[in-house]
């Protein structure tokens, strides 16, 4: 069954078709949420909420954009909301977030089991921890655009469509994100 047929079947209540549709996108969605939020729990919440919304609202999907775009609108909205709330929480909090605090959170992310030699491993670990700090400095939008372009390989035009903005704006966002990361990671690369 091609995607359009799958969507139509799911729209009429075919749960198996719905599941098949979910399975062709959910790995990428989970990766996006996990990379953006850096937390298993949060990524899991986004996953559930996003696909439940898809399930509830699929009958309103009219094929006037691609399903990918439609789905990613839902997902990125949820992620952006989450990142913004997190930011507000952090700013409202009277406790200053120390570097240690940041590092703590980073170290709760499980290490990947496989890597090259120990030296490279250490370097990549340090790099990763630095990356996490840098990503915190990007605005939610910059971060989202960067993730979608760099790790999900989406075209800027598609990203603009998902975020309800122009290709040019997405481009500017990506440029700022790149600049910030270069400034912060310069010594590593």
């Amino acid at each position: 069954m091609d995607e359009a047929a799958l969507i139509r079947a799911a729209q009429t209540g075919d749960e198996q078709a719905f599941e098949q549709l979910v399975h062709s996108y959910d790995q990428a969605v989970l990766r996006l949420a996990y990379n953006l939020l850096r937390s298993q729990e949060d990524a899991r919440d986004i996953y559930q909420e996003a696909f439940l919304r898809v399930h509830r609202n699929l009958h309103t999907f009219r094929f006037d954009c691609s399903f990918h775009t439609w789905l990613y609108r839902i997902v990125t909205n949820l992620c952006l909301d989450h990142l913004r709330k997190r930011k507000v929480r952090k700013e409202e909090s009277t406790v200053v977030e120390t570097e240690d605090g940041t590092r703590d959170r980073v170290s709760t992310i499980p290490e990947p089991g496989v890597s090259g030699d120990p030296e490279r491993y250490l370097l990549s670990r340090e790099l990763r921890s630095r990356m996490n700090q840098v990503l915190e400095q990007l605005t939610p939008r910059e971060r989202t655009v960067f993730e979608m372009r760099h790790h999900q390989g989406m075209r800027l035009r598609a990203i603009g469509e998902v975020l309800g903005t122009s290709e040019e704006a997405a481009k500017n966002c990506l440029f700022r994100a790149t600049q910030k990361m270069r400034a912060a990671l310069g010594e590593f690369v």
Partner: protein
Amino acid sequence: MTCEKVQAELPFLLYGELSFDEEEQMEQHLAGCAQCRQELDSLRSLHAALDQAPDPVPAPLLMDCRRELRLRIREEAVEKRSRGWWQRLSGLSAPHWLTPAWGRAAGALAMLAVGFLGARLTLPQAARIEPTFDTIPVSGTRVRFVEPDSANGLVKITLEETRERQVTGKLDDDRIRQLLLTAAQDPADPGLRVETIDLLQQEPATDEVRAALIAALQSDENSGVRMKALQGLKRYATHPEVRSALTTVLLNDDNPGIRTQAIDLLVQHKQRDVVGALQQLMEREDNDYIRQRTQRLLRDLNASVDSF
């Protein structure tokens, strides 16, 4: 094109986001400008670093998510249905025993929604729990008849329970173990298999459990399940069958994470039975970490790194 303009467009050159003409102009400029080329190089190494940076999504997470989604969709469907008939009937909201609470899973106790297995299994008589008003499972329960009795204000509802039932028991209960062993092979649901294998490793060590874990490690198509099985086999790591399974995995599994864990487990008990396989591995393995471990182990075992 000025250097400034070129450098502003470099990130988009790397992402392949420029038009053919723009790319042409960039290439022309870069060919004649060492400074911009240097910029491009440094941006390339930034990209290389960024490529390394993201943590892989933990393997069981996807399965967890899929399973939870399936449950929640079913819950929503049931809620909708039950709200429907109940409201039509009496204008009341759904009573609490129709609010799904099952499926939030267990700790040391194994609770299985038998619906996953029902088609293939009949429960031993003793494990049955008579449904009382409080234990009516929501999913899979169908209301067949509704008979309001206006004389005494009661409603008689005839339910048809076709699919799901819960059984509760200790992990060392034989019947629970049998159910788990069957669920560990449920072809339809990798999430269920992962969870079951997880429970099986808490079971008392028996030949049966070991065999199930070995079977999952060697033949489950899902790498999350294989990984779990591998973890469960840790306590059997000196058993010859397990060692032979680990060697097979080491030579054949296409998932480097699993191969890594397999070699780590073999290394813990330095026995010569693995030398031949390790030498074979050195010929075909391309993962640095695994090669390194293998080499070290061979050296520790006073064996040659090459096979003959």
